[in-house]
């Protein structure tokens, strides 16, 4: 039965494949997506030790093109896109005039005057309106919501190159972190990007939805002897949290600034004006009153998103992400805390269903891969 007031969930080009693999499907950002296939922890461990294959086609793609495309990107994105060469990608945020976050995104420079923005699934419509409005004020540039043209697969884990290289002529050893190239995988035209959301080496593969399953199957076969497993959104969330990557809607939103989210490194302080620059400069000069910290539980229990935090019996903040991580085997998380209680080793309490459990601020990331 469907409720007429709730729009039907969207399905990616690989939906039937997930169902055939026995995935547990859940709603996420307006999409019906695989949460897990064989078990969240085993998928998480496969990505840390071998490789995982993710369908992240729910992510949105917005293209901005035209003679003034760079100026348009520079206006809406807080990072400095002028530093991007063609074939290079950059992590950034769309910022409000207050320096808070409309969305976080990756900016790909496809050509001098052509950019691809990869945005969060739940924000596609909001971002597109935001971008189209801002781009319209800049000059010769146009924004197109191209989300339906792309499926997006991610191979993540130390065995990534071994899995993907036999299927493509693109020399992956020459594709540096946060660079991308066009080519073929399994005979299908793709864009291969050395990016991901797991804290491991990996590639993300943009491909036409019609042939996404061909690529998925080829990767599955190539990875079978290398320990590659299909991995769902559950493992994606625990992996990104171990790597301290922020999740939009949890660790940042339109009420938290880029600096409060601990993302000062993605602000192009030296570039010309962008939406939110003045507010962020002011906040940088004055210092933030609160920020996202990493924490570990001291007492038993898991501090989960939304739980309140306490110091000296007084409510001071809230947990924004929290889980028991399969690889580190600890209860960790992020919390938005007043700056007075944001220094590593500071203890605070998390209210877990009426009980106060002790936690400790720790430096992030929780997990950092060894680079070869």
């Amino acid at each position: 039965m469907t409720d007429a007031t709730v729009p039907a969930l969207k399905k990616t080009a690989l939906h039937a494949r997930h169902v055939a693999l026995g995935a547990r499907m859940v709603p996420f950002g307006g999409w019906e997506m695989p949460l897990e296939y064989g078990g969240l922890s085993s998928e998480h461990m496969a990505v840390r030790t071998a490789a995982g294959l993710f369908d992240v086609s729910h992510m949105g793609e917005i293209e901005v093109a035209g003679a003034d495309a760079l100026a348009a990107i520079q206006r809406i994105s807080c990072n400095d896109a002028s530093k991007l060469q063609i074939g290079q990608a950059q992590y950034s945020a769309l910022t409000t005039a207050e320096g808070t976050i409309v969305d976080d995104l990756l900016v790909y420079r496809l050509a001098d005057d052509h950019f691809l923005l990869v945005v969060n699934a739940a924000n596609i419509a909001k971002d597109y309106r935001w971008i189209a409005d801002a781009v319209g004020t800049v000059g010769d540039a146009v924004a197109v919501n191209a989300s339906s043209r792309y499926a997006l697969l991610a191979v993540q884990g130390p065995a990534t190159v071994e899995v993907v290289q036999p299927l493509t002529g693109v020399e992956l050893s020459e594709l540096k972190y946060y660079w991308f190239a066009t080519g073929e995988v399994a005979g299908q035209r793709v864009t291969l990007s050395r990016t991901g959301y797991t804290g491991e080496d990996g590639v993300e593969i943009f491909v036409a939805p019609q042939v996404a399953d061909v690529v998925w199957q080829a990767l599955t076969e190539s990875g079978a002897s290398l320990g590659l497993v299909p991995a769902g959104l559950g493992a994606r969330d625990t992996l990104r949290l171990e790597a301290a990557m922020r999740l939009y809607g949890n660790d940042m939103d339109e009420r938290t600034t880029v600096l409060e989210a601990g993302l000062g490194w993605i602000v192009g302080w030296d570039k010309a004006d962008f939406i939110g620059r003045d507010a962020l400069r002011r906040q940088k000069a004055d210092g933030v009153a609160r920020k996202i910290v990493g924490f570990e539980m001291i007492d038993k229990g898991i501090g989960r998103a939304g739980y309140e935090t306490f110091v000296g019996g007084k409510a001071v903040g809230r947990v924004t992400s929290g889980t028991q991580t399969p690889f580190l085997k600890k209860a960790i998380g992020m919390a938005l805390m007043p700056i007075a209680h944001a220094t590593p080793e500071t203890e605070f309490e998390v209210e877990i269903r009426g009980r106060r459990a002790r936690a400790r601020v720790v430096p992030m990331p929780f997990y950092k891969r060894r680079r070869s």
Partner: protein
Amino acid sequence: MYPDDRKYTKDHEWVLIAGDEAKIGITDYAQAQLGEVVYVELPEVGRTLKQGEIFGTIESVKAVSELFCPVSGEVTAVNTALADQPETVNTAPHDTWIVTLKVSEASEGAGLLDGAAYTALLG
């Protein structure tokens, strides 16, 4: 799959009653839905529970689920081994009790589901 030596609730607990002692755990279906259990929050021994009352929580990596008491009674023991090995709830759900109760309302057990009815509930 769901043996008739015990009764089941719609909330996916099982209860094994012998005399006035009830052992309580969660079903295989419940553990499969939760995924890997990482933490079980237990009540205090001596606490008096009413049928349907929440007596603890069980957490997997991805979810928190409440435990509902199948029959009224007083908590006589809690399975402290779960603190170090919560995963036994996954590996042997029907052999892993979470609490034992001294049953106060013997008649309540009759209203619970038997193995066949619970299997039918799962569809």
